[in-house]
């Protein structure tokens, strides 16, 4: 087990307003979320001395305009003018989960005391994807000429591989979409709060990139979320009950840039990340009381459930049936509604919900008697990270 287990905790969490597309600069969303997280902790902004983010554009091809299409550490520094700032980082290869892990490491190293991590997602007015132009450069030269323009198709190909290899039926995925949307009706921060979804809606919805229909894809939105991380001893003195970090892991399997469609890469990536999380925390999938698994596209949940070890390969769509992922089920899943309900905010939302469930702060969607709370914060293939938060340090 990890000697640093339960020595760092998530304290406050914060949310910005979420709009379908950009109405105000993205920096204002990020600032709103960060202020909310600091206030939720009961801290003053001047207490914050660490900053971390993953400032990647949510869709390919847009120009990087700091404060408008991304919110970098530099941009946040300019807005907050932190008098005690001591440490910051923005990560590139491990998505927002990697930024959280870097903040954990900085806290353990004692180079900062209260770190804020945010994820801000831009959705321009008009077309979400800025598709490759007349010419396809770099890795796109082998994909864009064939109509592989966006992430949906890249994810969809591995899904057909999974469906047909395991002789499975995509209609079973309706259970995930409908259950998550029902969870979201208790989450006022979700884009689809107040908008129910029925099995019929799912089964009759338009196809986007088979096997993905509309409700297999998270809706692009403009918004931000943030968390405060601190050491466990400091967290105990703050307003919220801490969610203790028991262990984490990140994807360690190599993938060739530009190669798409490999189902085995998803599985290897997920196994490599979760193995470390299980080892470091000392828990196993059977110990988990509630799970948040990244669902930017629905099939990511399949790859997560299987590669993290919650069920056998080929069985995830059967595993999610019969009430198992309901709030009172055997494995309550994506209890905040998932990205499919909140909109495309990436995995920091999953981390937030994992922490809220561990600290008993999830309100009407709180799962009873939670101690072990699992998070898979990105699709396992390229940027996967995994976490376990617990209510009781051990």
């Amino acid at each position, binding site marked *: 087990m990890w000697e640093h287990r339960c020595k760092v905790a998530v304290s406050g969490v914060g949310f910005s307003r979420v709009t379908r597309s950009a109405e105000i600069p993205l920096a204002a969303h990020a600032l709103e979320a960060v202020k909310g997280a600091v206030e939720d902790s009961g801290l003053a902004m001047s207490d914050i001395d660490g900053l971390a983010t993953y400032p990647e554009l949510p869709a390919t091809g847009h120009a990087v305009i700091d404060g408008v299409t991304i919110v970098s550490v530099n941009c946040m520094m300019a807005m907050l003018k932190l008098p005690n700032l001591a440490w910051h980082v923005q990560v590139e290869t491990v998505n927002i989960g990697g930024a959280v892990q870097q903040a954990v490491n900085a806290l353990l190293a004692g180079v900062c005391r209260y770190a804020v991590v945010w994820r801000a997602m831009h959705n321009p007015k008009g077309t979400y994807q800025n598709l*490759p132009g007349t*010419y*396809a450069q770099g890795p796109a030269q082998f994909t864009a*000429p064939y*109509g592989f323009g966006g992430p949906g198709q890249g994810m969809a190909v591995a899904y057909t*591989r999974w469906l*047909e290899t395991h002789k499975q039926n995509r209609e079973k995925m309706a259970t995930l979409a409908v259950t998550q949307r029902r969870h979201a009706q208790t989450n006022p921060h979700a884009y689809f709060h107040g908008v129910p979804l029925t099995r019929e809606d799912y089964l009759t919805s338009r196809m986007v990139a088979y096997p993905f229909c509309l409700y297999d894809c998270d809706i692009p939105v403009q918004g931000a979320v943030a968390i405060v991380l601190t050491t466990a001893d400091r967290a105990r003195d703050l307003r919220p009950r801490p969610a203790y970090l028991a262990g984490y892991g990140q994807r360690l399997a190599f993938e*060739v840039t530009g*190669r*798409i469609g490999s189902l085995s890469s998803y599985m290897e990536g997920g196994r490599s990340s979760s193995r470390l999380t299980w080892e470091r925390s000392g828990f196993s999938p059977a110990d988990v009381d509630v799970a948040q698994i990244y669902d930017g596209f629905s099939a990511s949940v399949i790859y997560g459930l299987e590669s993290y070890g919650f069920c056998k390969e080929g069985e995830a769509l059967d595993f999610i049936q019969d009430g198992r992922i309901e709030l009172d089920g055997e494995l309550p899943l994506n209890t905040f509604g998932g990205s499919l309900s909140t909109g495309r905010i990436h995995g920091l939302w999953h981390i937030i919900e994992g922490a809220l469930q561990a600290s008993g702060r999830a309100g009407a969607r709180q799962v009873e008697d939670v101690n072990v709370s699992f998070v898979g914060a990105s699709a396992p293939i390229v940027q996967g990270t995994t976490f376990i938060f617990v209510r009781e340090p051990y």
Partner: protein
Amino acid sequence: MSDWSKVTRPIPVPNEWTKPFWDAAKEGVLKLQRCQACGHFQHPPYPTCVNCVAIDLAFEPVSGKGTIYAYTIMYHTGDKRFASAVPYASIIVELDNAPGALMAANLLEAPYTEAKVGRRVEVTFERLNDDVTLPQFRLARGAS
């Protein structure tokens, strides 16, 4: 059958690592990058062998026959250049004797409903302009 006649495809731009692939395609030959140390084929091209880390790599002809590893049927018309072909099959092909070298393509000369994991396919070539020819795939003909 998807109508490709009105589709304007993005034109691939070869770079120093990928030029031999496109040069061969222009001649109607499918060549993949192969490690000269361990014999591993890989695609897309990479600066080192992803199997043994050797840097002695060369492009060698492959049979052009393989199976559909995975596919998607595109319905979304967000990219107007492809809208006239919707629905169309974008496939990932695993070539015989080059496991792991996954190639993207469209399934040509067949209804998109013929795209299924495990179907046998063979390479065909689609000329885009004087400089660039695109390797594509169709269902394999006869014994394969």
